[in-house]
């Protein structure tokens, strides 16, 4: 709107100036030409020239006056006009005597405007000046009318501009207002709000991003709520066991030594479970504060893998599972933290054992040109395809029920992914429901690449 006014107002001023100046300069030019002709006629000294002048002034609708070099009135068409030569200033008279033409506006006794042109005459018969007066009231009226119509047209243009600007501003601001409202509602906790995406431009992109943010926050909130519910359940359950069985032991309500040992084993198991949970929570808090540290050095990845297989072999054997290991790497050295590598493989292999009821777990270590690759494949329950993108998120669990058979807190894979990335590696998971899951972990082994 402001821009339009900045353009319209100067334009209106220029158009107004063009109209008014065009008319006055055109009249001035015509009168000047007439003055030249009349001056030339008077210069001849012909007595008939006076009559001719009267006729020409009548034809052109102007009044003509002739003055001598002293300013005395010699002849004129309207003797009732005041001596107009007296309206000239000293400077203008000087210019006349220097053979320059003078043009100025005058008013008579009745305040009627006139355009006066003075032309010097220098001849043998006459030395003085000729003045031509042309009434310009009608011209001024016409110019005034045109100015009024221009103003009306400008006002019309401003109204049209206001209308169009109003439409555009509403249409532009409406999506922004809608997004502002959605953001405000999200801040208050309503994460189900959606913004309508109407266009493919930046505004549409912002709306889509806001919707995705809402979905992410909702998923984060839901999984976090689930996490806290799981944590409280996971803590409450072992505490209940600890409380119950320790009470039984303390009260001496045991019938045999075997039963006593069994209860003590259960107490120990639950205490370990609680300890694992607390350790996971501690790892999580360090991750959120960016304080997880890795002590990198050149290490043999196959050794870390084999140690983990040794530790978890009995657990797999207990379930009737077979772990098949294949180590095919001539140079399995990578730049990483041995302890953290074991943590990664322990977590992955433990998951494979946990979620496989029967069959085999393949652990394959090999190398490519640039990486050392560890593949773990199982014949377990698998992960639904729609849940695969989320398995590395914190608190996310595919198995939602609180079955003690699976356990877990939803933090294991999030920690694994973070540890892999801290050691410049990559991890990916593929899976098919009820067929099994395959995890591939890669670490670069080129010392020049890693050092640089």
């Amino acid at each position: 709107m402001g821009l339009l006014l900045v353009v319209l107002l100067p334009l209106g001023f220029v158009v107004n100036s063009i109209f008014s100046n065009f008319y006055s300069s055109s009249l001035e030019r015509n009168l000047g030409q007439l003055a030249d002709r009349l001056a030339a006629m008077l210069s001849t000294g012909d007595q008939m020239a006076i009559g001719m002048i009267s006729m020409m002034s009548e034809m052109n609708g102007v009044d003509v006056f002739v003055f001598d070099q002293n300013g005395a009135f010699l002849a004129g068409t309207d003797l009732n006009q005041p001596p107009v030569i007296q309206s000239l200033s000293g400077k203008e008279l000087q210019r006349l005597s220097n053979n320059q033409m003078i043009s100025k506006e005058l008013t008579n006794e009745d305040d009627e405007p006139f355009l006066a042109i003075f032309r010097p005459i220098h001849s043998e018969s006459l030395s003085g000046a000729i003045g031509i007066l042309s009434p310009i009231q009608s011209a001024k009226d016409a110019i005034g009318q045109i100015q009024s119509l221009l103003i009306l047209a400008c006002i019309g243009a401003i109204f049209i501009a206001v209308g169009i600007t109003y439409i555009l501003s509403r249409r532009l601001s409406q999506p922004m207002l809608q997004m502002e409202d959605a953001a405000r509602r999200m801040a208050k906790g309503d994460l189900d709000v959606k913004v309508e995406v109407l266009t493919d431009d930046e505004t549409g992109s912002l709306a889509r991003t806001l919707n995705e943010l809402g979905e992410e926050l909702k998923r984060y909130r839901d999984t976090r709520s689930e996490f806290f519910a799981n944590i409280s359940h996971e803590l409450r359950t072992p505490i209940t066991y600890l409380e119950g069985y320790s009470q039984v032991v303390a009260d001496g309500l045991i019938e045999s030594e075997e039963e006593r040992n069994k209860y003590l084993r259960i107490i120990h198991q639950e205490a370990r479970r609680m300890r694992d949970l607390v350790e996971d929570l501690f790892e999580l808090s360090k991750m959120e504060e960016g304080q997880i540290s890795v002590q990198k050095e050149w290490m043999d990845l196959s050794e870390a893998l084999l140690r983990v297989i040794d530790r978890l072999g009995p657990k797999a054997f207990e379930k009737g599972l077979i772990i098949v290991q294949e180590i095919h790497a001539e140079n399995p050295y990578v730049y990483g933290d041995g302890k953290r590598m074991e943590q990664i493989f322990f977590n992955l292999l433990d998951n494979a054992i946990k979620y496989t009821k029967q069959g085999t777990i393949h652990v394959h270590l090999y190398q490519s040109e640039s990486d050392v690759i560890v593949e773990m494949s199982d014949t377990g329950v698998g992960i639904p395809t729609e849940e695969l993108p989320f398995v590395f998120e914190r608190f996310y669990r595919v198995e939602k029920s609180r079955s003690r058979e699976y356990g877990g807190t939803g933090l294991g894979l999030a920690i694994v992914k973070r540890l892999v990335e801290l050691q410049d590696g990559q991890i990916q998971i593929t899976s098919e429901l009820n067929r099994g899951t395959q995890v591939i972990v890669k670490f670069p082994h080129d010392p020049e690449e890693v050092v640089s």
Partner: protein
Amino acid sequence: MKKTDWAIACVFIFIGLMCLAMSMSFVEHSDSVHVIMMTAFHYCLWIVIPLIVIGFLYMWIRNRKRK
């Protein structure tokens, strides 16, 4: 946009168009409603035709981008 918003915008635009039409008609020394409306129609063509051309250009460019 609500109907009231559209109504307000249309009123402004209509007033503007009438002001333009009247200023053009008075130059022709006519205050006949018929002349004013015909004048308005003529210069509305000067607005609508470029808008149509721009609209076609915009849709053509958009379709090319999508392809």
